[in-house]
């Protein structure tokens, strides 16, 4: 049986979070009435001209700095010429020969906590196209050009990924970087981040790459894994059956969970790239780039290292908590409020993430604020409540039953009972109410008794409505039961 190796490269298109378009003053807001945000420039009316948006340049440069890429002093816009109804001018203004961001690298973290560096070949600025709406307009297609001219950063990786998981991890890493930098909302459902995947296979040990297929329309983290899994299997089967992979563009169909060849309607494209004569070379001086560098936030890789090194979290926890800016900010706020990084990590990763997942909420939508969670953890750490009560308090906060952990603890009387007299009284009552169990306990061999005491602890905790200190209950019970 031949051993195969998968080789993957990604082209990620990120819509930049500018207010206006890359070459015009029209709004980029999502979801407006069709063509209400397509101005004269976006429509390519005769005579209009482009002027470059500074924010798009700044965002691209920030990304470059975030992946330690070279930022060339000069970049140039080119025209990529082809006809399509969603491309109003008959060319897309892009950067073919002199992109704004040169070679850099992105660190990805895998499930086992290991990390790997993926090289980025370059990233370039370009304009987005409009949208074709295929609902039936008397057998016609409708064109909405609101999206035309939205700034895109196309990030082109080297073919450095070797599995679908690595590809998904890379896409997540890019997502984390752009959202940390605040240069994109990263909303894949609204198309703010879109991905084309280049996949090939080769016999293990072979140096030359196999023929690759480009899979388009892979627009979620899950789809990346599924599309690659399908494509790898298809290519291996094809080769093992004596066929050859053809270089082509394929479309991922998430419904059917497969990739399909896009019918080649014509001979290979010839985009006739040439420098856009309506735009001049973009020259970035050192001071401008240095200024942007000074505004960069701490990025995921640095954060992960700090969480692990300074805060002593496990590699896994550090990686998950640093994976998104929102998650990291939430975690750090909880940590600052309670002063215990490990407890903060446990709660965010455990109770909170569980609840969020159950209700399909993002961390930004959490009904429990970081401050509330931090106070709750503080009350566990100072023994005001026990772990069981803490879960009740969390649930109450989640349900909006109170503004703070303290208010809920008071209202529900969940304060831990540490008064040994009160606990003793409850124990005596339980012993009196359970003669059968007491007799069984006392008849048992001493080494079996450890397990049997659980019943009595449960009864006492129940009697205390969970507020008794479990360690105290255990010790006193043992004392009383073993007495006779």
């Amino acid at each position: 049986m031949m051993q195969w190796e998968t080789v993957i490269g990604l082209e990620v298109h990120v819509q930049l979070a500018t207010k206006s378009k890359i070459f015009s003053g029209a709004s980029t807001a999502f979801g407006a009435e069709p063509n209400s945000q397509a101005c004269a420039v976006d429509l390519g009316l005769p005579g209009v001209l482009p002027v470059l948006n500074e924010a798009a340049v700044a965002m691209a440069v920030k990304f470059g700095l975030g992946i330690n890429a070279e930022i060339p002093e000069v970049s140039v816009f080119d025209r990529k010429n082809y006809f399509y109804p969603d491309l109003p001018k008959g060319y897309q203004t892009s950067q073919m020969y002199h992109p704004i961001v040169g070679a850099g690298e992105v660190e990805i973290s895998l499930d086992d906590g290991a990390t790997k560096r993926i090289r980025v070949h370059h990233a370039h600025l370009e304009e987005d196209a409009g949208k074709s709406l295929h609902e039936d307009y008397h057998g016609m297609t409708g064109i909405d050009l609101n999206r035309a001219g939205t700034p895109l950063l196309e990030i082109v990786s080297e073919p450095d990924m070797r599995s679908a998981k690595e590809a998904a991890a890379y896409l997540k890493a890019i997502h984390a970087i752009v959202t940390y930098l605040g240069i994109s909302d990263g909303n894949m459902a609204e198309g703010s981040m879109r991905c084309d995947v280049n996949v090939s296979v080769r016999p293990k040990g072979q140096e030359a790459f196999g023929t690759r297929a480009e899979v388009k329309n892979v627009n979620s983290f899950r789809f990346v894994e599924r599309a690659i899994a399908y494509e790898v299997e298809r290519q291996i089967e094809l080769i093992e059956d004596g066929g050859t992979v053809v270089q082509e563009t394929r479309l991922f169909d998430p419904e059917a969970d497969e990739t399909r060849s896009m019918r080649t309607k014509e001979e290979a494209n010839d985009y006739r790239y040439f420098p856009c004569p309506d735009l001049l070379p973009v020259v970035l001086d050192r001071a401008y780039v240095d200024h942007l560098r000074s505004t960069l936030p701490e990025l995921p890789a640095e954060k992960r290292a700090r969480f692990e090194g300074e805060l002593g979290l496990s590699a896994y926890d550090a990686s998950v908590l640093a994976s998104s800016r929102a998650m990291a900010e939430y975690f750090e706020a909880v940590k600052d409020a309670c002063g215990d990084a490990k407890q903060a990590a446990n709660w965010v990763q455990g109770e909170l993430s569980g609840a969020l997942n159950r209700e399909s909420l993002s961390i930004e939508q959490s009904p429990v604020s970081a401050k509330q969670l931090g106070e709750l953890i503080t009350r566990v750490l100072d023994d005001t409540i026990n772990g069981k009560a803490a879960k009740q308090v969390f649930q109450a906060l989640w349900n909006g039953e109170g503004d703070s952990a303290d208010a809920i603890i008071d209202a529900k009387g969940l304060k831990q009972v540490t008064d040994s007299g009160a606990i003793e009284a409850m124990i005596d009552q339980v012993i009196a109410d359970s003669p059968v169990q007491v007799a069984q306990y006392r008849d048992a061999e001493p080494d079996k008794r450890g397990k049997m005491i659980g019943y009595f602890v449960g009864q006492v905790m129940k009697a205390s409505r969970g507020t008794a200190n479990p360690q105290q209950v255990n010790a006193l019970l043992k004392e009383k039961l073993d007495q006779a």
Partner: protein
Amino acid sequence: MALEPSDVQRAAHLARLAMNDADATGYVDDLGRILAMVDQLQEVDTDGVAPLAHPLDTTQRLRADEVTERDQRDHFQRVAPAVENGLYLVPRVVE
């Protein structure tokens, strides 16, 4: 560089110009002579000469990121050949 009718057909297709074989043959002569005239460029020694894309050595000015355009859809669509519900209509696009 001699020009063939197939070159003309190829360019016509890329440029989305309808062109039958007779048209293409007609263009071969004109375009061939234009290209022959253009080929004189090859006589010039351009070793080490940087291409010049713009006559002035100026650089791109950057625009502040502000929304300055208002909705003028109806105004712009008055000159459109086919619109419905604010959309431009084209023959069905098959993906």
